[in-house]
């Protein structure tokens, strides 16, 4: 289980505009996590790559660069594997990494 990166918020939570973006991202995140898990379960690797790609591009802008980094790793892995279904275990571990990180923001302990 990854603890949230202490420098995770590259945005200023005290700035109203930044806070609005952080809040929006956190509201949307559970939905994306569900989509990631569903895509992985259904072997829908195209969808998985699409969500990973979007998170990679967007997360840093909302103040979550570590999610962006993990999503980039997942995207990279999907791109490198010609047949992702043959390396499900490697993928599973990367999906788990990303999902746990997201969950640690959604349900901070």
């Amino acid at each position: 289980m990854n603890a949230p990166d202490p420098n995770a918020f590259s945005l200023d939570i005290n700035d109203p505009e930044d806070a609005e973006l952080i809040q929006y991202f956190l509201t949307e995140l559970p939905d994306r996590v569900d989509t990631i898990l569903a895509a992985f379960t259904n072997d829908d690797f195209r969808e998985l790559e699409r969500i990973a790609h979007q998170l990679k591009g967007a997360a840093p802008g909302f103040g979550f660069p570590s999610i962006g980094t993990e999503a980039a790793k997942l995207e990279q892995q999907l791109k490198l594997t010609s047949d992702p279904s043959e390396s499900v275990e490697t993928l599973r571990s990367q999906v788990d990494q990303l999902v746990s990180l997201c969950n640690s923001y959604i349900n901070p302990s």
Partner: protein
Amino acid sequence: MSETQPNPYTETSPVVLLVDDSQFVHRLLEARLRSESIVLSSAEDGKAGLEIAQRDEPSLILLDLDMPVMDGFETLRELKEDPRTRDIPVIVLSGMNSSQDKVAAFDLGAIDFVTKPFELTELRARVRSSLRMSELLRMLAQKAHIDGLSGLYNRQYFDEKLSSEFNRTLRHGQSLSIAMIDIDHFKSVNDTYGHPAGDAVISGVANLIMRETRSIDIACRYGGEEFAIIMPETDPNQAQLMCERIRQGCEHLAWSRHPARNITISVGVAGTGNTDTVTITPEGWVEMADKNLYHAKQAGRNRVVTTGLDGTHISLAQAG
């Protein structure tokens, strides 16, 4: 969470269209470009983006490369092929910092390339810079369409607009009228009072035409002392009234260089109330208006002669 305040729309706020399949990017840029005086419009795929671009002709397009169905390259290619959208600057957004993609995007006509995640200060500056460029291009294009002496559209613009308005009106079966206007005895004004006086007459009549026409009309200096007006959504009766108002207005203009000498105009109008059954070409239409102008001259000048496309004569009494 505070409600998103839409940018107050004013005539001068340029519209920027964002085409991106990610809701996150829409939300992010909506917040981050709020301080710019722009109106952000949005599309979630290339096809919708094309449609909005063709309909609204935004001042700038921010286009994501990596989209499902129709990707950014294909969208960009289509934008650059359509005369309506060809000149709109496009900033390409990409999640990949790939030189190959950059080269391809610039070769397809992109004005700039920005990599995600965005560096926001930089993105804002790039948006501003592209908008400046787009405004300059717009001014330049407009200037190329304006006649220097009269301030009306020039002949070239008239020819362009004639066919596009003609086709558009035909498509919708609307009414359309065309007027040709000529200043009476203009040569004698030049000969008697000199060319500067002649120029003053041309710009005086042009000002009057500009004042008496509506924003939908396309008023041009057709050549020498001749003007032409394309009047969309206007049947020959309405056109007759409008041209009669211009004719009367001209009679009453005061001329500082020759206070004793009035200036009058002759006008020929050809129009129809319903373009559903039109078989004439745009050039034939102008010829018909020109023929009516000739009849106005023959009948003693300082008058408006109007006919429908079928040849029916429109008199002032009918028009009134």
